[in-house]
């Protein structure tokens, strides 16, 4: 399936009718369904499997003004060896950093990573987190990260444009950013599109923004920057899972989902995996198609993993703090 760009520049009117034709979302019903899935009880072998899967789906993130090369190097090492005492522990999916830290991360992760496999480098771009900059600056931000070795770009949509109804602008920015992900060798960095669902407010808007992003060529749709509350929630993620499911049914193209922000415990992570399992199934139970944008989550997963391996509760001194 050719993707994204062949959609071309969609007119405002056609976008409007495309998104307006989507079924509405009932808030109470959606939240009730998400809560019901949260009551699934996952035990023993299933839980071990789920924890390892969750670890392998973590985009280990640091997005602070105070980030330094030292901090990013530590993060990269943690991503490669989440539990240095246990070689069976899988690596995280990626590290997620600001564009100026991509080169540091690339160096720290060394050869044999990136597109070839292993821990990926994801970089936020497009004037993250607000997205309030001119398009050429956003695109330069993107190109810079890609040039420095980013495997994945986490862009933000222009929520202001979306809310005031300028859907074409949002669409075109995604298309342009996707083009900016291109590399000289013809390959391109994967594009994750952050909807910042906490600012879109209604589930109807989240569903429309999801479809807009997918039609514009997103490889992933992502809930949040982590800088706005609420960030990822179970219902909003469920809604986006339904969107990628329906999008694949309609177009044949599979899009990934990344909830980010606010997922801190193994219990929560497993609930998200249950949602993926029951909404989408095996096809998405893979780090290529589902990610957690998180930082503290990884250590909680490791503590649980140790508990299941050793049979007793572990403590924070037994996981690394980077």
């Amino acid at each position, binding site marked *: 399936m050719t993707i994204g760009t062949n959609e071309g520049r969609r007119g405002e009117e056609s976008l409007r009718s495309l998104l307006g034709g989507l079924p509405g979302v009932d808030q109470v019903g959606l939240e009730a369904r998400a809560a019901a899935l949260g009551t699934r009880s996952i035990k023993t072998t299933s839980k071990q499997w*789920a924890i390892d899967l969750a670890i392998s789906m973590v985009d280990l993130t640091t997005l602070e003004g105070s980030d330094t090369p030292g901090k990013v190097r530590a993060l990269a090492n943690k991503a490669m060896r989440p539990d240095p005492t246990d070689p069976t522990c899988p690596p995280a999916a990626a590290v997620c950093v600001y564009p100026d830290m991509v080169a540091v991360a690339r160096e720290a992760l060394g050869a044999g990573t990136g597109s070839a496999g292993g821990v990926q480098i994801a970089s936020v771009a497009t004037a993250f987190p607000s997205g309030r900059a001119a398009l050429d600056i956003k695109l330069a931000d993107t190109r810079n990260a890609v040039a420095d070795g980013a495997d994945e770009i986490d862009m933000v949509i222009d929520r202001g444009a979306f809310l005031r109804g300028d859907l074409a602008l949002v669409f075109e920015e995604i298309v342009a950013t996707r083009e900016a992900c291109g590399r000289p060798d013809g390959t391109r960095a994967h594009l994750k599109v952050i909807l910042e669902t906490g600012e879109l407010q209604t589930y109807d808007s989240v569903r429309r923004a999801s479809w807009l992003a997918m039609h514009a060529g997103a490889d992933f749709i992502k809930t949040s920057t982590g800088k706005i509350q609420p960030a990822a929630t179970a219902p909003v993620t469920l809604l986006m899972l339904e969107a990628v499911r329906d999008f694949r049914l309609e177009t044949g193209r599979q899009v990934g989902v990344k909830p980010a922000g606010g997922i801190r415990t193994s219990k929560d992570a497993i609930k998200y995996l249950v949602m993926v*399992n029951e909404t989408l199934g095996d096809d998405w139970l893979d780090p290529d198609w589902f990610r957690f944008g998180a930082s503290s989550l990884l250590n909680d997963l490791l503590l649980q993993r140790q508990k299941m391996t050793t049979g007793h509760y572990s403590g924070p001194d037994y996981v690394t703090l980077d």
Partner: protein
Amino acid sequence: MTSTRSAFEYAPAPESRSIVDIKSSYGLFVGGEFVDGSGTSFTTINPATEEVLAEIAEATPADVDRAVAAARTAHTRVWSKLPGSERAKYLYRIARIMAERSREFAVLESLDNGKPIKESRDVDVPLVSQWFFYYAGWADKLSYAGLGPDPKSLGVAGQIIPWNFPIMMLAWKIAPALAAGNTVVLKPAETTSLTALLFAEVCQQADLPAGVVNIVTGAGPTGQALVEHPDIDKVAFTGSTAVGRAIARSVAGSRKKVTLELGGKAANIVFDDAPLDQAVEGIVSGIFFNQGHVCCAGSRLLVQENVYEEVLERLKRRMSTLRLGDPLDKNTDIGAINSAEQLARITELSAVGDAEGAERWSAPCELPDSGFWFAPTIFTGVTQAHRIAREEIFGPVLSVLTFRTPSEAIEKANNTPYGLSAGVWTEKGSRILAMAARLRAGVVWANTFNQFDPASPFGGYKESGYGREGGKHGLAAYLEGSPS
């Protein structure tokens, strides 16, 4: 159920049954004590395994007479004389004890009834506690029931409850009756007596005065003896329309007031502008909640023709994720059919659906070898002329019909002798209100289904019975001056 997925199999997560202590045999609860019945006994089984759980006394007319006498004495000497504020405190106590012992009740209910622990734990038992808490607060506020100052209780209520929500139906019956100052003789369904008998222990723990609640176990003849007893003032029955009709006949010419919650064949109407994912959830919970053993189940799906294919596809996909099996497994969505008899009825009516040319589709799942099971099933190509569109199946079987216009939807929805509930799914507010106004049903769920709350009146039109349970209306049904 064998899932179509392989990577993420949930390991069994059974709730421990060690929390419940089932005796080998049970007597009746009369005058605050467990007493032996004067007749024979019958066995109650776990419908998921056919394992015998206990022997239950079959109350004879003489036993019923003793229970009514105990209730009468308690009413005359104690309960009707107690200030409402004091009655309230007993009901609050019961509410609290039910919450404290909720796990025990949930496990016992799932063992005896076959419903998934997820439902008994998260729906039935919490509602029981809430029901007592709600009506406790009414006990000293009867003057606000809309029947004038200081309305009087009726006296002794004979209450007969069904097997689909045993402990929840008990609460729906007993809580308002006691709040209004009545005493009760309650007969649980013969296949699901255990939680009612455990509730008798709760009455003892709460130090409820002897005879205020009496529980007589048994089948139809016990119920008949109760309904026909000359010294009861009120009959409250939830069950089949056939039995409801017999009760309505038998109380003719008496002073007995009656509340009847009977059968249904609810239409669940999905318009093309519905929130489809939530509508699919509503369709699923509407017919597969509690294995479809629900009088208000949305057993007739009416889908607007232009979204029929899409809704059906989504529905089947969703049904494929339902997990059928051990009711005590926390991940079970669909439990056991309550009895061999009920399974036979579901099987028979489904065969009628086949014979009448409707197309059957069942979610792919493996049924356990022992116990009573029926896979979640839908019939498409159903019209109003099919028996499966008219008769209550009371199982996990959905009949799917289509419509073109709102008027056609209303016409089909109302074209039934029943009138208990209905569902409407559309994002258009004015259409919801227009549909709700024209649906001849006592409960209309718009963009939701199968919601229950003690503050909300529940009950049907036409052959779905009369009177309401829940809310102020449910209280008034146990006071002098109310119509029914």
